[in-house]
């Protein structure tokens, strides 16, 4: 189990979330330590996306506590902004700004939010484009790139803000199969460099090789949470076993 004696990166205590009458999150308790890699899996509608979207306040939790790097998430805008500066997010549908070139996509937030100078921003942006292995696409429009390239740009864009933790919401689900590995490779690199990350995904190979902890969610609850070897070889819960048999059979 990774992590050191310092404060955990993310703490979720008793978190509940309702959409109208429907309860999407039921009493979620989760602690993520620094440098820890967590993979969250489960059937659709289990609340996995909702859970991580609560961490950067894209969804508002109705009860319980969420603390990110010592900052508690409340309705206060200052708290929210403090959290969002430290948390990077990569979306299933990339969400690159279509009207900005790749490099401008990367430079927008650092300039506006961290108020960096243009030269410094550009240098860092190019650095991250190289990290995701597509520096030559800097001046292209997002629409000119393939899905895999766009997602890598999205990862670079999030990294430009120097986050302490990266959230991935099904990053490869919208990609054609042949492009999945180029994105996973980038994520593996990130993990090996020690980035704290929570990844919602169906890619079990990634979970097995990279994760420190695998979390299984179903119907709004965390059903099981274990290191990958234990999780895959000896699932404790009936529902976990059912899910694994469905997802690993073909």
């Amino acid at each position, binding site marked *: 189990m990774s992590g050191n004696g310092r404060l955990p990166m993310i703490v979720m205590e008793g978190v509940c979330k309702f959409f109208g009458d429907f309860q999407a999150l039921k009493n979620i308790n989760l602690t993520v330590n620094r440098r820890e890699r967590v993979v969250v899996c489960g059937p659709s509608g289990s609340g996995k996306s909702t859970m991580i979207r609560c961490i950067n306040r894209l969804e508002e939790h109705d009860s319980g506590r969420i603390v990110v790097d010592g900052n508690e998430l409340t309705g206060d805008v200052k708290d929210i902004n403090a959290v969002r500066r430290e948390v990077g997010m990569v979306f299933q549908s990339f969400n*690159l700004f279509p009207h900005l070139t790749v490099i401008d996509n990367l430079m927008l937030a650092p300039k506006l939010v961290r108020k960096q100078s243009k030269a410094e921003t550009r240098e860092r942006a190019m650095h991250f484009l190289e990290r995701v292995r597509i520096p030559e696409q800097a001046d292209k429009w997002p629409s000119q790139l393939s899905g895999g390239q766009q997602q890598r740009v999205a990862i670079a864009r999030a990294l430009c*803000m120097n986050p302490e933790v990266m959230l991935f919401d099904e990053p490869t689900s919208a990609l054609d199969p042949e492009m999945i590995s180029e994105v996973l490779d980038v994520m593996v690199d990130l993990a090996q460099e020690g980035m704290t990350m929570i990844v919602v995904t169906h890619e079990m190979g990634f979970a097995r090789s990279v994760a420190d902890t695998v979390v299984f969610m179903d119907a709004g609850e965390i059903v099981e949470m274990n290191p990958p070897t234990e999780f895959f070889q000896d699932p404790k819960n009936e529902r976990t076993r059912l899910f694994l048999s469905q997802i690993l059979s073909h």
Partner: protein
Amino acid sequence: MSFDVALIVNSIPKMLDGLELTLELLLLSSAIGLFLAVGTLLMRISGLWFLAWPAMLYIYVFRGTPILVQIFVIYYGLPQFELIRESVLWPVLREPFGCCVVALSLNAGAYVSEILRGGVLGVDRGLHEAGKALGLSAPQRFIYVTTPIAIRLAIPAYSNDFISMLKATALASTVTLMDMTGVARTIVAKTFAPYEIFIAAALIYLSMTWVIQRGFGLYERYMSRYVKE
């Protein structure tokens, strides 16, 4: 009954006399209207009820009543009130031109604000979320993400509305103004040749429409240069 093509051709120069007023009405009202529209839109999406409700009422009234009636209320109706006659706006509201500009601007403001709102709503929600996740504040998201995309989305509807504005300027002729339609009506009254004169006027309006559509088409192509084919 003869169809005098020569008359059409000869009338066109006379009609162009009215063109100046038509263009003045169109451009002035559109400019003021755009300004009003942006203001109204911001009020409408502000989330504050005391801003949003007056904005919605304004839009409701001006989209729900005919422009002709709006012009009549302002031109014939407002002088009923001593308050208006003594106010600082009287020099403007006394003149048919001023009244038409006011009516057309208010109309444009209401319609265009809904068009802009359509553009704003058309911006993919995911892009807002990406902006939030990156830590951009709400005003920053609105300026750097929403507005450029909303403008591009709004262009087709706006160009249609601009053409409607052009057509609405013809109503100025009902309050004695000598725009193109006003000039045409005067000539017809003298020559009893409605087909030729009105068709000549129609041809000029059609040419203007064509130019406007081309212009907006080019602008839209430019704004869409980053969109996948």
